[in-house]
């Protein structure tokens, strides 16, 4: 069970009580939820951790209420936004709700949706390219660290990253247009 499993199939398996599917669902969406909490709402690490756990707890409890299994991503985004606002509201009781959500949140979620599609592309191009691009861009590792950890000459990392980006670009273009499903 891996990246080839669609979001809808993954949700169906979770709903059927498959623990390994739940584990994969958390892995698939953990960065997305984390990014909304930490980059979007700029919550402290402590608050972001609380919201992160609350999101997955509520998702686990309410998965049966999701009407469109394909819409798990926007459903999680809405849940995360609501719980981030609740957390901020606890800290600033006087502020109106509309002032608690940072400007540009819709655009930020759109960017994260595109970023999730790129992650699907990373999974499709396989290793070592997926891992190498993740290490360089998302984990901010240096050529030297990547070379040491993947047992590759550091001097070749830049050209490998460049080739992997081209491979990813091709995979993304082959996958077609990106359309977010409606919330279920």
């Amino acid at each position, binding site marked *: 069970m891996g990246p080839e499993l669609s979001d809808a199939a993954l949700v169906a398996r979770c709903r059927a009580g498959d*623990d390994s599917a739940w584990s994969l669902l*958390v892995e698939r969406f953990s*960065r997305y939820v984390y*990014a909304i909490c930490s980059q979007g709402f700029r919550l402290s690490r402590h608050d972001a*951790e609380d919201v992160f*756990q609350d999101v997955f707890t509520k998702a686990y409890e309410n998965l049966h209420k999701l009407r469109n299994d394909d819409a798990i991503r926007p459903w999680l985004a809405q849940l995360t936004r609501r719980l981030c606002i609740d957390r901020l509201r606890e800290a600033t009781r006087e502020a109106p709700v509309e002032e608690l959500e940072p400007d540009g949140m819709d655009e930020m979620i759109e960017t994260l949706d*595109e970023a999730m599609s*790129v992650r699907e592309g990373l999974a499709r191009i396989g290793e070592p390219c997926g891992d190498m691009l993740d290490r360089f861009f998302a984990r*901010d590792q240096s050529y030297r660290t990547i070379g040491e950890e993947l047992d590759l000459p550091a001097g070749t990392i830049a050209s490998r990253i460049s080739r992997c980006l081209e491979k990813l*670009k091709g995979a993304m273009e082959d996958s077609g247009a990106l359309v977010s499903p409606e919330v279920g």
Partner: protein
Amino acid sequence: MATFDIEELGRLIAALPPTPEGWVRAAQELPQVRRGLDDLLARAEADAALRAKLIADLESTLADAGIEPTRHVIADVRERLRSA
């Protein structure tokens, strides 16, 4: 995004940095923890001594039952004990 340029791809990969390891693991273990808690709380409902022990020393009782007493687990159990 109809076309994908290389710089944009790099920026989008960077938009999703890794989540702290422990957070993911805790969320992944949710089903097993839930089943453990359900079992423990069901037994506590039928066993006054176990219920008293849970209330008096929640962390140790959870650990004895094989459940890691994280902050979130403790908060969850307290909430469930309150509403029981």
